[in-house]
């Protein structure tokens, strides 16, 4: 029997605000000597914010995929003549479990760049030999708000960044939430880029901190609604931070954070009001990221 009003297609409903994601596709390639380096990203596009990357190396002479001894990766953006910067990324790529490709990530920040173009540097170590290649890339704005990020100055006067990594496609219910937390360190800007130099790791992972989480719906009609049973984010072995966020319904959510260091000192963030205030926009914390699904 057909109904007067159709039931909501729940799958469609929860993915409505999430840009469609296809597979990993080549987003950039470079040639060095006999090797072709292919860098794959989702949809074949580099987005601002978090990008999971897969790197495959082919020997152009044999046409076969090869596994070098190691691969180093660094994205560089030119700020001014002679001044370059990097962004959070995985420097030593890691072999995927099936050895099919090499895994890495890059969290592009374009907001603070006068000229947001990037040059990717890849160095292969095959035998005793180093092969370094570069390519110019451009990034697109990430439209999936669930991969939003925030850049902020901590109470310790250092510049930090929190980037959401997962869930890319949140569900109503319990979602593991993963974020990268980085801090910017002052480095000497060498006029001439020297690959593999730690001088360019302007962003380093923040270790042993805690990211306290208070998700709320800012929409006035939701009156600062929150969800129960969330778990603060703590650091995993791979350096990323993981916790649990519960979304009670679809819509706009604000993840209010308090970043605390290992000694429990607040680096940034404040406790937000827990009052239920129907009709009034929820007041967001000084440290927060908005998401939407």
């Amino acid at each position, binding site marked *: *029997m057909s*109904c*007067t*009003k159709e*039931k*909501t297609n*729940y799958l469609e*409903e*929860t993915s*409505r*605000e999430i840009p469609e994601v296809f597979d990993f596709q080549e987003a950039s390639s470079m040639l060095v000597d006999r090797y072709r380096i292919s860098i794959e990203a989702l949809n074949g596009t580099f987005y601002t914010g978090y990008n999971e990357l897969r790197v495959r190396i082919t020997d152009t002479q044999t046409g076969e995929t090869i596994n070098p001894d190691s691969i180093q990766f660094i994205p560089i953006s030119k700020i001014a003549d002679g001044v370059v910067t990097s962004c959070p990324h995985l420097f030593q790529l890691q072999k995927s479990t099936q050895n099919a490709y090499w895994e890495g990530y890059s969290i592009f920040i374009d907001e603070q760049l006068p000229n947001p173009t990037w040059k990717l540097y890849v160095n292969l170590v095959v035998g005793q030999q180093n092969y370094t290649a570069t390519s110019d890339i451009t990034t697109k704005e990430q439209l999936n708000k669930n991969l939003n990020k925030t850049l902020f100055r901590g109470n310790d006067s250092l510049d930090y960044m929190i980037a959401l990594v997962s869930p890319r496609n949140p*569900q*109503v*219910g*319990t979602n593991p939430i993963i974020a990268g937390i980085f801090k910017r360190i002052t480095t000497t800007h060498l006029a001439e880029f020297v690959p593999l130099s730690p001088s360019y790791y302007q962003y380093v992972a923040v270790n042993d901190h805690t990211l306290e989480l208070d998700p709320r*719906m800012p*929409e*006035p*009609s*939701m*009156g*600062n*609604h*929150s*969800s*129960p*049973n969330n778990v603060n984010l703590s650091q995993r072995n791979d350096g990323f931070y993981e916790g649990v966020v*519960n979304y*009670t*319904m*679809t*819509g*706009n959510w604000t993840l209010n954070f308090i970043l605390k260091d290992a000694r429990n000192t607040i680096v940034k963030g404040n406790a937000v009001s*827990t009052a*239920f205030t*129907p*009709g009034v926009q929820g007041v967001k914390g000084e440290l927060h990221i908005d998401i*939407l699904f």
Partner: protein
Amino acid sequence: MRLFISFLLILFVLSSSFAQTDTNHRDKVKTLEKVSIFKRKKKKLATDVKLTALVDELLGTSDNISFIKRGAYAWEPLLNNMTTERSVITVDGMHVFGACTDKMDPISSYMESNSISSIKINSGQHGNMQGATVAGSIDLQRISTPFGQDKAWSGSYQTGFEFNNNQTFNLGNISYSSAKFVADGSVGYRKAGNYTDGSGNEINHSQYSKFNTSLGLAYKTSELSSIKVDAIFDQANNVGFPALPMDLWLSRAIITAASYQQQFETGLLRVWDTKAYFNAIEHYMDDTNRPENLVHMDMPGWSTTYGLTSRVELKQGSYQGELQLNAYDNLSIAEMTMYPQDRSERTMFAYTWPWVTTRYAGVSSSNTWNLSPISEVNIGASVGTHYNYARYSEFNRIFYPEASESKTRFLPSLNARYQLSLDKFRILLGTGFGQRAPSVSEGYGYYIYNSFDLYDYIGNPDLPNETSYEVNAAINYESEKWSISSQVNAFHIRNYIVGKILSIGSPMNYQSVGVKAYSALEYARLFNIAISGRYDILQHLHWKGTLTYARATDNNSVNLPFIRPLHYQSSLQFMHKKMGIQAAINGDLSQNNFSPEYGETPTQAYAVFDLSGDYTFNLGKHHLTVQVGIENMFDSFYTTYADWGNIPRMGRNVFTTLKTHF
């Protein structure tokens, strides 16, 4: 699941092609009389003063029934002062489940007074034949014309107008009866505007309109067997619920059944009755007439049930028994979409019933032994398995991360009753034990806003079974001129399910002040007593009166909500030739044992007087009855303990009815 449905469908098709219905009415009545074990309350379908009443008003004539009223329509029947989760409400033994998270649609709301012939109420565990219950069972029985009536065609028509809310109704019935074939149908339409309370204030959003039609076809396949198909269609449009923040835009039910009945003239097995059924309900709420609401919401709900019942009636010597199989599969879905103030922003979606499947299969039996000509003992038992599964259980896991994916419960029930008839006295003593599973809302409800206590309610899939221990007694004296009867029952209910404030979570509905979780109290105790009497003052002057009282507390001696204070009703009926006059008074004393913990405020005593007169005459070949009456004659302004949000009840109402039949 799919297998189960196909199984049912096959049965459905089989029974519709082969099977069944009421065999010769006289046979059936005889059988019923013989096998009727429980005290079955067959209500004559009229109230003390009204010839043509709403189904709710008819239900209300039972001493065991009271109502939570959220407006003028679809009152929630409380059996033994317990809400509908605790009773089994069926239509001809078929399980039907409402599709509204806000209880706008008790099953009785899908019936019309001319589509039912009787209402069968069994108190407590004596109501376990249809499935697990605590409070008892209410079975609304559809009209059913016997085979081989003297008149092949018969019909009736009732129309009327009620002045308080400009209600008009038109109810028509027609039936055809031959030796082998029976058809009966009913059509009813009601429309009412807002009612006015005793202070002359119009109660906005109390209008309703309802269309109901039903059809039954029965064919006698042999001298002792018959097949029958039944369908009821009900549609309510534009129903206001003044006590709720939302109204009803449309609610629609289709209730269908195919059954086969076989009777046996000799042997232990006397009747075998099997029915396959299907019903579907859709329910769409509407808040667009409530501009005061801060948030616009869409809250549609759907409920679909497939079921099977099969029962046999047994008789041998001093033993008579009944054995019944019940199985059903229900899917309840309710959605909530909230619209942001800035409509260009993303709407917010959640399931309030996250596709909850309930599957029940159980066997019930009732056995009576006549110990002597004056005494009999009855022992009944039932066992059932109750299975729940939520397709989107992630909603429930937000509050209960460990909530099980599916839940199977085992629901036993036992009851015993001893009856002694001594001259004009009849004494009944009974006891019972039974369990029920949480309802869909109690188990899986998600942010269901309760406008009574202003909390959002969250279900808990792993709630324990509610377990009832019950004793009851009744004494009845009946003489030619007068009768008096009294019945008492007491329930000790372990794991009594109520809403308890939850320390986690924040409200979702903007009117809400917090979140409550359905939780099990250690126990609750309920006590009900009713005393009723009848006296034939003169041959044509009759008096009737009823007094009921109830008390209910939880394990901390805190009062439970919606418990009726001392209630009385009394009526006089005078008949002279073709004329009748009825006068009635009913009222409650003030509610002292109210429950602030559950959102109640005290209500004051009230009394309402009703008066009506009717006259029957012939117009040509037609037999006509007209009735004119007045309800709440003195225009009292009152609200009762069970009026949601203490909305005032209807003030003075003049009603008229014209009834004819052929």
